[in-house]
Structures are given as structure tokens and as C-alpha cells.
């Protein structure tokens, strides 16, 4: 069972629709206790780093997630859900992220400040969700992107006014900056591989 974490951000339904379409059992979870019934967790997200962390803290989900991540259990963070894995974000100065990865999210320097559209993702090394090195298009909607302190966690890169981390991975914990649930066949394939690997 994939637990899709509801923390009041939008976009939860499209992820669940994609999982349903792929036949991957999933349920929406709102509090820390519900993670016990899950073997995978997915943290979706379009929203604000500060208010997302506030909600995760309020529901005690933040601590449950930190335990989950520390135990190297299967996890996928999408967009804001990937950024929340890091220590901090320029979007909400002073707010602590989940801190699983060292590093922070920063705004793009180029125009438009929001990256909206399809961009090429280059997978740098073979992994559970990219068996081979690939270059494929995924859909992005983001104004901030993560800057990992440890470059070795970068599983894929894209270019938007400079190269940035499109995907990060350590063990069974994944984060992708793009939206696989909106990236047509490439995105669905990625979700299937993550959900079944």
C-alpha cells in the first residue's frame, strides 16, 4: 500500500489518479499513525515550503517521516515533496525542512522565475527507477529547486538557466523535482518502476 500524504497542498488527486491508473494500491494518509499500514510513502506537492512544514509538524507527520526516511523505507517526494527532504528553503527562511538531505532550495535566477513546462531530464546513473542512463522529457512547475550539499545523491539533472538537480536518491529514498503524474508515458513508467521496484 502506497500512502499518499495529505498535508493540505494541492495536486494530491492527480498523483492518486496516476497510481490508480497503474493499478498501484494507494490511500490518502493524514496522520502519523496511518503510516504503519503503508509499505511506501509518497509526498506530493505544489505549495509553500513554510506552510507545508508547519502542517507536517502540526500532525506529527514530520517526525514520523524522519523515522521512515532514517530507516531507509521506500519513499518518493515530488516537487515540493522533494524540496522538503532538505534542510531549508529560500522560500521560507528560518523554517527547518525534514533535513534528510543536507542542502537547501533556492529560486531560479533566470526568467520566467517559474519553470513551467516540459524539460529534458538526464539520468546520470543507472538506478531502481532508471535502469539505464536516459534523457527524457518531464513536466515541471516550480520556482525553487534543491541544491544538495552532497552531489553524490543527484540521480538526474535538468537545465533551466543552468544545471539543477532533477532527481535525488539515497537508498530507497527518492525525490523528483518534476511531476511524473503529469509527464505522460515517461512519468507513468517512472511511477510504475518506483511503485514496483
Amino acid at each position, binding site marked *: 500500500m502506497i500512502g499518499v500524504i495529505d498535508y493540505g497542498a*494541492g*495536486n494530491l488527486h492527480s498523483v492518486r489518479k496516476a497510481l490508480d491508473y497503474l493499478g498501484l494500491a494507494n490511500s490518502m494518509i493524514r496522520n502519523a499513525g496511518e503510516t504503519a499500514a503503508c509499505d511506501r510513502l509518497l509526498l506530493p506537492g505544489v505549495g509553500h515550503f513554510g506552510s507545508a512544514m508547519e502542517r507536517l509538524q502540526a500532525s506529527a507527520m514530520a517526525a514520523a517521516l524522519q523515522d521512515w526516511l532514517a530507516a531507509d523505507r521506500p519513499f518518493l517526494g515530488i516537487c515540493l515533496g522533494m524540496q522538503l527532504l532538505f534542510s531549508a528553503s529560500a522560500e521560507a527562511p528560518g523554517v527547518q525542512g525534514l533535513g534528510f538531505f543536507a542542502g537547501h532550495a533556492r529560486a531560479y535566477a533566470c526568467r*520566467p522565475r*517559474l519553470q513551467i513546462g516540459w524539460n*529534458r531530464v538526464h539520468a546520470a546513473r543507472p538506478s531502481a527507477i532508471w535502469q539505464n542512463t536516459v534523457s527524457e522529457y518531464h513536466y515541471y512547475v516550480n520556482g525553487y529547486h534543491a541544491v544538495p550539499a552532497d552531489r553524490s545523491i543527484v540521480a538526474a539533472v535538468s537545465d533551466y538557466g543552468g544545471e539543477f538537480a532533477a532527481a535525488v536518491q539515497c537508498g530507497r529514498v527518492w525525490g523528483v523535482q518534476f511531476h511524473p503524474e503529469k509527464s*505522460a508515458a515517461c*512519468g507513468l513508467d517512472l511511477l510504475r518502476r518506483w511503485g514496483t521496484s
Partner: protein
Amino acid sequence: MIATRIIPCLDVDCGRVVKGVAFRDIRQVGDPVEMARRYYQQGADELAFLDIGATFRSRKTMVGIVERVSREIFIPLTVGGGLRSVEDVRRVLQAGADKVSLGSAALADPQLLSRAAARFGSQCVVLSIDAGRDNGAWRVYSNGGRRETGWDAVGWARRGEELGAGEILLNSIDRDGTGLGYDLDLLRGVSAAVAIPVIASGGAGSLEQLAPAVLSGGAHAILLASLLHDGRQTVPEIKAFLREQGVICR
């Protein structure tokens, strides 16, 4: 590099896709879910559904269409037409839309853009502008091109960006459905004035007219209706042609 998006646009009235010329002479062209499926399979980058009926019944039908489409089509979906409040926006996003397009309602109540952006984020707020030439300037029209407003297109686009719009859907009402090509001056004027993506709409009648909207007009995406609905071109043909002209496509 971001690819230029090809966005098939389905104008829907009470559950049927229709197409008009210069906002008049409406005729039916098909079923929205079937057409959405076809364009998705062809490699469309996004789909736009505009409810041109904008009556209570038509709007309700649209929500049903979005629910069905979002269960099997996994690209961004933009929905517009007749959305007047944050609650209207919430309803279509809940149904499965990723973005909403606001036009007349934003002209009547510009703060609607701010309220929608504050609640759901700028990324899902598309400001739709219907602009027509008038003595060397571009006037903004509301209510499907029927009512003139005091705004000029560049000024209104800037204001919309300030208020929180994440994209501009720019439609030339003089060119809409005519096949005469995009109003490139209008596109250039608006895309140079804002730092958010501009979607070109209205006027494309042949492949040759598409690349200039991007390369000369500065558009980030192209909204297409007639060219696709008439079956004259497919999405892959359009992308192949654009690539030859130096436009990056997925």
C-alpha cells in the same frame, strides 16, 4: 531548455466541442473526452478546455468532463470559461484541472487573480486576454469579445502578473479562427512586458505560421484549435515541422 508546448484547445458548449470563426458562426466538431484522448496519444503537451456555454448546466457538464479526462490523461489540464469565484476555481481543480484560465471574471474583479493565486498558487492561474487592434493599440475585450474594456493588452498583462497570474493566454480576436496567422506585434508587445510564459492563440491556419509565434513573437506555448480539429494536421506533424524551424519540442 524548456520545450515549446503544443496545447490543443477544446471549446466546449454543453458537453460538445465547438469551433467558431472570429468568435461567431459556432459549429460542432466532436466529443471532448474522445478528442482529448486522441491529442494525448498524439503527444500533446497540455490540454485546454474552455467552457464557452458558461451557463450553469454547461459548467456542470465541464466538471464531469474534467473528472473523466483526468483519470486517464496524464498531462496538464487547463480549464476556463465562466469561472467567477475562488469557489468556482476550487471546484474545477478538485475535479482534476491543474490550471484555470480566468478572463472576463478577472476584468470584472482583478483581485480574483490574487485570491486564486494566494489560495492555490500562481502556477495554476492563467490570465486569458482577448485583445483586438484599435488604432495602433490593442484593446482588451471581455465577454467573449463582445464588450470593450478600458485596458490595453500590455497594461492588463502587466497588471495580471503583478496580481499573481502565472501565465498569460493571449488571444487575438481579430485573427481567431481566420487562419491568417498570429498577430506577432501583439505577441511581442505582451511577451516583452511580462516575465511569465505567454501562450499564443488565435489565427493559426497553416504550419508555416506557428514557428514565428515562438521565434519572433516570444510565445512559450501555442494553443491550437482549427488546425487540429479539422484534421489537417496532427500533433507529431506540427512538432516535426517546428523542430525543422529551430523550435524545441518534446
